[in-house]
């Protein structure tokens, strides 16, 4: 690790009960008047898009267009299509209400509009995107896991090549993130569990990947502590707003951490599992995390040992011999996954998640194209990926 690091988190965060009510003022301050609301059909059905509309209307702000036809795994063509609608309707601000797919799509749309492009594929890259025209982007996450509301990363599926493409630039970080427990209380237990494990995975990788730094570390360890204390509570009782807001904060902090320190092999394989076998991202993270930690053990032993303190608490940390702390950390995460399976049926293995062994070669091939493997602390090749998939099956 070099002594140089870059750190950026420009998103303004509104977190806590009633945060939604502060949204109109923030939109006005950013100069938005013709607003596009991007969400999905489920959220529309349960009245969440209407709730946002009414909050904005109370402050005399109108939504010019609502787009809810976002698939579970959004694609490049969807982003291009929405951008075209935005140009026709002269949209000058975007609000995204939803989970990772909705948020990443909205980032893609904003990217196309601000760069005055016609195809998102032309904007692909790593840190090469100029600032472009300022289009305010406000994110209201309805899950607590991706952390995408604060990251400079968008992962969008390329339907033609069946792989997940990464767009990485500090210029795609959203302007506002609104974390209100009102938006997450209706999240089903299994989704709560999967997204919560995604947040944990971000924090663990954020704490151990190549560009870790003192600032990203601070966010990562707090995120780990919050997940450890609140995930099971939120899964058992979805109406526990304290646990909900703690998990939303955990996901956000893990997002800030990994956005600056990068993610590694868990995401490298996880993206491929999503693209090839359509395993939900959080489920893939839950299955892969302990296996990948074991693979990275010799490079990340100290990092994992440190995390035991935040995962298990000071008593267990102090009672565990120094040489056994890293392995105890992995065991703790395994136990947490088992507990979640017992409560809500979150898959523990690839076979439980419906992955076919016949797809392993394609998953490995797709994973080799993922940039996350490059910045994993330990060397990753096809054989390594196949061996992890076998162990996780």
């Amino acid at each position, binding site marked *: 690790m070099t002594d140089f690091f870059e750190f950026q988190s420009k998103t303004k965060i509104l977190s806590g009960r009633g945060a939604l009510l502060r949204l109109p003022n923030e939109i006005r301050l950013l100069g938005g008047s013709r607003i596009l609301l991007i969400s999905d059909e489920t959220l529309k059905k349960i009245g969440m898009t209407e709730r946002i509309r009414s909050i904005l209307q109370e402050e005399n702000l109108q939504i010019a267009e609502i787009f809810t036809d976002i698939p579970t795994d959004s694609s490049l063509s969807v982003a291009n299509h929405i951008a075209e609608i935005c140009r026709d309707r002269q949209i000058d601000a975007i609000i995204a209400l939803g989970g990772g797919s909705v948020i990443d799509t909205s980032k893609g749309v904003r990217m196309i509009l601000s760069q005055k492009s016609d195809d998102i594929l032309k904007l*692909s890259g790593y840190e090469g995107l100029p600032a472009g025209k300022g289009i305010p982007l406000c994110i209201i996450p309805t899950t607590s896991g991706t952390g995408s509301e604060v990251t400079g990363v968008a992962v969008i599926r390329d339907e033609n090549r069946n792989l997940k493409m990464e767009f*990485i630039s500090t210029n795609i970080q959203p302007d506002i993130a609104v974390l209100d427990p009102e938006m997450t209380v209706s999240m089903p237990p299994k989704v709560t569990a999967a997204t919560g494990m995604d947040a944990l995975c971000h924090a663990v990788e954020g704490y151990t990947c190549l560009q870790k730094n003192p600032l990203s570390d601070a966010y990562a360890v707090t995120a780990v502590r919050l997940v450890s204390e609140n995930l099971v509570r939120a899964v058992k009782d979805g109406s526990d707003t304290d646990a909900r807001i703690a998990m939303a904060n955990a996901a956000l902090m893990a997002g800030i951490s990994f956005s600056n320190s990068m993610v590694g092999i868990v995401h490298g394989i996880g993206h491929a599992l999503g693209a090839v076998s359509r395993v939900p991202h959080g489920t893939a993270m839950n299955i892969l995390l302990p296996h990948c930690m074991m693979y990275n053990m010799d490079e990340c032993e100290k990092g994992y040992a440190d995390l035991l303190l935040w995962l298990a608490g000071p008593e267990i940390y102090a009672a565990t011999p120094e040489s056994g702390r890293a392995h105890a950390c992995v065991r703790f995460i395994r136990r947490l996954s088992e507990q979640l399976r017992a409560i809500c049926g979150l898959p523990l293995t690839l076979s439980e998640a419906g992955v076919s062994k016949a797809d392993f070669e394609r998953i490995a091939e797709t994973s080799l194209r993922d940039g996350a493997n490059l910045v994993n602390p330990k060397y990753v090749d096809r054989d390594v990926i196949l061996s992890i998939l076998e162990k996780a099956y």
Partner: protein
Amino acid sequence: MKKIRRQTARPDRKFRTVKEIMQYIVCAVILKFLYHGLRILYRHDDRVKQDLDRIDRGTTIRLSCSSHGPELKITASEHGIDRCTPRRCRRYLKNTADGSADAKAAESAEKLPDIDIRFKGLAFSFAVFTGQIGIAEAFSGHMMYVNGDFSKIMSLVRCMEQAERYLFPSFMGRRILKKLLPKKISSLRLYASIIFSMILR
């Protein structure tokens, strides 16, 4: 007055110090070595061959040492990679009249690359090309940026790491590479082949 004139003139100069000139020359030479090395390894190391074959034929990639530094513009071809130069472009167009992938690749010498990899400064590329830091470390240390489909260059990056394994002695390789993979040909043979290939050109 003289002082002011000297200060305003400086930013327009390509190089400001002897150190920068040396870095420019070293980077230019190593880019040539890297190019020829990858072409030779394509024939002798199946891992390099597999990785270069993963890049779609005709994809043009530009690797620049800085905004004003030396650069290498290549295209994925039947030889693994080929240089995108006007001369090579003409040769291709002469030999292939059916508009095949190679002809398209040659035509692309004239246009912007599909993927542009650029170091943020000559000092960073010099550090990577002289084995002071690894490519993964340069990526994670924000020393370079990429415009274009990021997924397509992963295999090229792996190839460059494998080439480093051959071009640098093991003690340097251990410092900059995450794993020292076994060599398929000796470094000495590779160096000799590179020099031979450069002379033949």
